[in-house]
């Protein structure tokens, strides 16, 4: 009913914010009643939460275990390597962000900047980190934002091939990051059982995210290929994986990979789990990509072929760039579930974020502090997913610019 009121108004008439609110929520008695009930329910819940957070919760458990939750038992003398990794990440992230957005600062970016700045100033202090560590975090954020704006200003002058190959930088960052984390090549080795917490969660999730893309692409192409054997193989794989719960695959992976590759050859537990995550996610990624491939009109392939492009060139220059754009929202949805699925690794005994949290809670000293720990866990996951969502949204906007806005 309120919508019919809207339609009667001439479009140029400007409504005050208050008037808009009145029309949206209190256009008639029934609307008003529903709105009132909802608003009071939300207010009551928020009030309870706030009261709990400020008066009842004992946040000491977070401060006491913040390093454990972030890094696991990564040895103190080697932590400078993680700082180095953070600087590397903040560099690449800042540059990517700037190249995606150029000189524009949409509302999402302003919001993200505000949240990021607030978190940097507040969180390290809240968990009672020494001033030096706090300052380190401030530096990281400042560097990220600095690069974001300078890369944004220079993006127009960056040659297109650099932009096209930019995504390939992330696997390189991952490999160098793992080099820093694990050691070797002159660095002291830090064995994988010492990696833990958020660090391990991200190691596992990023491994799977990077590898499930090429694997999923191969499966999607296999599934739409003309060779029956290849097609059946891809279908069997996808349907088997999608029919099995991840947790059974994880248990299976721990056992089977041990049988298949005996002794020292079998990958470490951590990498076994990472491979299972990859194998699992790639089946879903394949389906997302297949939907993208199916959305490309036949005429695109015909035009490419009639210009003389061969199959591989048609795929890489005409079909895939368009298909990935279509599949992007589904892919990001997949990545977000993947990130959350890493919590299942705690059930096979890995000390990722949830596993670490459970050991903290098992400590008699912190008995009964479940709510505090799980709230922080939820917020951490929420931050990671929000970052993924914002990044993909920015990528989508950039890829879609040809549809709407003229490029100068």
């Amino acid at each position: 009913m309120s919508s019919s009121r809207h339609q009667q108004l001439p479009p140029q008439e400007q409504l005050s914010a208050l008037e808009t609110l009145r029309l949206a929520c209190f256009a008639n008695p029934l609307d008003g009643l529903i709105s009132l009930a909802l608003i009071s329910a939300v207010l009551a819940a928020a009030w309870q939460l706030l009261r709990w957070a400020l008066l009842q919760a004992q946040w000491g458990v977070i401060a006491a275990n913040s390093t454990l939750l972030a890094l696991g038992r990564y040895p103190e003398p080697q932590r400078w390597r993680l700082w180095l990794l953070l600087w590397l990440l903040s560099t690449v992230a800042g540059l990517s962000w700037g190249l995606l957005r150029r000189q524009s600062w949409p509302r999402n970016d302003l919001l993200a900047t505000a949240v990021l700045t607030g978190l940097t100033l507040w969180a390290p202090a809240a968990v009672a980190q020494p001033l030096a560590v706090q300052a380190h975090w401030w530096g990281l954020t400042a560097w990220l934002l600095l690069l974001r704006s300078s890369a944004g200003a220079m993006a127009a002058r960056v040659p297109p091939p650099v932009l096209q190959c930019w995504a390939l930088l992330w696997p390189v960052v991952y490999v160098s990051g793992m080099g820093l984390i694990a050691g070797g090549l002159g660095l002291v080795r830090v064995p994988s059982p010492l990696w833990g917490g958020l660090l391990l969660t991200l190691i596992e999730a990023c491994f799977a995210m990077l590898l499930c893309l090429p694997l999923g692409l191969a499966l999607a192409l296999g599934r739409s290929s003309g060779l029956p054997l290849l097609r059946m193989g891809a279908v069997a794989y996808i349907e088997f994986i999608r029919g099995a719960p991840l947790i059974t695959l994880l248990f299976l992976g721990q056992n089977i990979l041990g049988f298949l590759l005996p002794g020292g050859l079998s990958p470490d537990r951590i990498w076994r789990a990472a491979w299972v995550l990859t194998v699992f996610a790639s089946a879903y990624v394949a389906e997302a990509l297949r939907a993208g491939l199916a959305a490309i009109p036949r005429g695109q392939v015909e035009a490419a072929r009639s210009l003389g492009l061969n199959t591989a060139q048609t795929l890489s220059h005409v079909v895939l760039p368009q298909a990935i754009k279509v599949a992007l929202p589904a892919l990001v949805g997949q990545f977000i579930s993947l990130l959350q699925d890493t919590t299942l690794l705690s059930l096979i005994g890995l000390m990722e974020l949830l596993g670490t949290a459970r050991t903290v809670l098992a400590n008699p000293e912190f008995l009964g502090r479940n709510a505090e720990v799980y709230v922080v866990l939820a917020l951490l996951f929420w931050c990671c997913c929000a970052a993924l969502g914002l990044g993909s949204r920015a990528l989508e906007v950039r890829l879609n610019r040809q549809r709407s806005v003229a490029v100068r």
Partner: protein
Amino acid sequence: MTQALAADVVMLEARGVNTWYPNGHHALRNVDLTVHQGEVVVIMGPSGSGKSTFLRTFNGLEDFQTGSIIIDGINIGDDLRQRDAIRREVGMVFQQFNLFPHLTVLDNLTLAPVLVRGRAKTQVERQALELLERVGIHEQAHKYPGQLSGGQQQRVAIARSLCMEPRLMLFDEPTSALDPEMVQEVLQVMQELAAGGMTMVVVTHEVRFARQVADRVVLMADGEVLEIAAPEQFFSNPQHPRSQQFLSQIN
């Protein structure tokens, strides 16, 4: 005119071509066609008569089961490399333009010459801009196809094919998807192309274009070529009853 050309080089020769679609439909029945270098052949006929199928066999987009097609001396066989060689020499313009929406107009033109012919990008770009100027859209070179009108898109599609320097151009109803006011700008470009000596096979219902530009008109119905005649004769005095029927329907 046809006599003079007959002595010339044969650009396309189709002999006894038969095509069955996988569902068993017999789409082409023993069709023959010879096109000489520099000639413009217009194919007409009712919808579903196999015009597109015929045109698309010329660059291997459609398979045929019996008969032979020789284009510029290359026999379209099962050999994939020969098929690729033919596609390099034959340009095709589609009813739906089929521009690549994720590339700028300029990149649409340069993609194939750079990838397929391995030419230097800067050199291809210069040629592409000249071609765009020829079809009257060089100012839009850095826009994306989605920002252009239908007529402009079709002219870009023609320029994109020309950028590969083809020996033969195929047009499958190039103006059928256009708003009426844009038909003329595309036909104009095609007419200039024909005047420049390009060999062209054009499926179209534009009678005026066929009268003015075609050297010969081909009438197809039910997968068969029923009549081949010079345009003045075809339009004033069609021989086959199906031609008479078709012309009375479109007038």
